[in-house]
């Protein structure tokens, strides 16, 4: 009897939480890295339950660095619950801004300083720049689900502790086509990696590269 109950318990647990791997590839089948992947319940009313069950997972900071006069990472994804930290690792000042009308901000961040009092109330995408170094470009995706990530060099992202409530998978990258950014992909939980192939080609990510080839350029152009 105890054995049977243990079996049932382990069985339920294994259905209830599973580690699931997703792999994103481009139109030619090559791994697509740096793409934001997030899961939303098919029944969106279950979002609150999802968050309720997430209380024990400590919220992690999302760090957006300014390093070598670049936004690093180029694309960050975080949930609206998580704190965001801007961290200037350069030896110069940056003037970071968002062009989003509803979430506009701008602040100067001096060398070695951090800023962490910026938060977002709802799901959105933010395009950011530096008003001193125009080549710098960064993007931030705010989601309202606890299940989000960025594909690694192999195009993979893994979610553990995924409850079996039925999800839709969504992708985001500033250089993805609208078709791919708007797609909602349904999937069933299996032990096998779930493959997502982009419908349209992804355009090149900006190099965030200073066009001048000299260190002591003063903006005369």
């Amino acid at each position: 009897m105890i054995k049977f109950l243990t079996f049932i318990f382990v069985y339920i647990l294994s259905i209830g939480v599973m580690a699931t791997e997703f792999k994103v590839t481009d139109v030619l089948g090559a791994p697509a890295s740096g793409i934001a992947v997030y899961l939303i319940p098919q029944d969106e009313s279950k979002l609150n339950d999802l968050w309720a069950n997430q209380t024990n997972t400590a919220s992690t900071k999302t760090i957006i660095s300014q390093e070598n006069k670049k936004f690093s990472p180029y694309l960050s994804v975080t949930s609206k619950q998580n704190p965001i930290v801007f961290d200037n690792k350069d030896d110069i000042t940056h003037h970071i801004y968002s062009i989003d009308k509803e979430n506009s901000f701008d602040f100067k961040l001096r060398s070695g300083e951090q800023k962490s009092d910026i938060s977002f109330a709802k799901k959105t995408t933010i395009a950011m720049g530096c008003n001193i170094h125009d080549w710098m470009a960064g993007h931030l995706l705010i989601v309202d689900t606890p299940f989000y990530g960025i594909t690694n060099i192999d195009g993979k992202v893994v979610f553990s502790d995924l409850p079996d409530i039925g999800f839709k998978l969504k992708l985001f990258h500033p250089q993805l086509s609208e078709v791919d950014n708007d797609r909602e992909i349904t999937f069933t939980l299996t032990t096998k990696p779930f493959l997502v192939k982009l419908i349209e080609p992804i355009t090149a990510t900006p190099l965030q590269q200073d066009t001048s080839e000299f260190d002591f350029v003063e903006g005369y152009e």
Partner: protein
Amino acid sequence: MKKRALSLLITCLVSNVSNSAEHKLTGLIDSRVSQVDGINSHVNGNYGKFRFDEGDNISLSQAIVNYHLDFDIPISLNVVAIAYADGIDDSIGISEATIKYQAIPNSSGLRFSARAGIMYPKISLENNATGWTSPYTLTYSTLNSWIGEEVKHTGLELTLDILGKFRQSKHDVSISASVYKNNDTTGTLLSWRGWTQSSRQTLWHERLPVPPVKARFGGMLKHQAAETDPFIELDHRYGFEANVFWQWNNKLKLRVGHYDNNADTKVFKNGQYVWETIFSHSGLSYKLTPSTTLISQFLTGDTLMTSPWGMPVVENDFQSAFLLITHKNKSHRYTVRMEEFSVTDNDTTPDDDNNEYGKSATLSYQYRFSRHLFLHAEYNWLDSTRPARTYANQDIQLTEQQYQLAAKYYW
């Protein structure tokens, strides 16, 4: 009312300084050994095309300090001071002084900015480093040497930037327009002395000697003062300038612009005539490879000086163009520049022949010892035909050569 507003602004800025402004000092120390095979320099009012006199010279050719003050409000101040200790005309003073407002781009990537003060119009594609110096060569092209000598002003420049990155576009466009004053004698030296190849920018207080044009000595130009004041305001009229700058994919930069100082040539005060100078310019910078860049500029225009009754006295067309290729290989930079220039005299004033035609080639090598320290060697060859040189008993057709070795410390 104006005074109160001004004092309020100053109080606001000063209190901002103490709270949260950021100061930045940058600069350049550039010392050189040079040898000129030619004639004495235009800096002292001669016809020599180079900055240094014939023979050998050791100089502190420029010491530049750039003071930048950045407020937390989107306003910044920038002042450039330069000292020359070249034994030809030692001098120290202000070259540029501007206050700038720059807004945050809107959701379409449009950004407005405004700049006021003593400034260069945006023309040069060579002079983009600290204190309007060139990272490529020791001497600037004839085209940009003239900008550095006579084409500075006090004005208000409005710029609209269209940043492509927010529309996933590789095209950035910048449109600028200026109104300005303190430019009334622009064209004087280009007419009477011709194009030069220099690295000396005129400081705001400086007056420059006029070459010995024969008509100045008892002829039609006898009322002209011995020195021209390039930044004087005599007619109290505003000049205009506009340009469009287009950048594509970190590779291509293209600028076209037009300049018109809108001067009233009937004004004449204290030996200074007002010259009406109008020109158009275009420039291209293209990265042939990640380490090789091609820069080319072209400028064409005309200038007019009249008697106080409006009779044309000096009427010239001028043109200058250069092609520069620079290649960087680790710490080494190699630069070649070819130029062609002319002044065409369209008036009949006797003893004042302003015609000129010339070509130039520059070979430049730079070695970077550290982030800040550069050793720079350069050879300039300049061949020109200028009949006015007979006024100084010099050859009409003349080839001048200059060798320079410089230690440059950017900080």
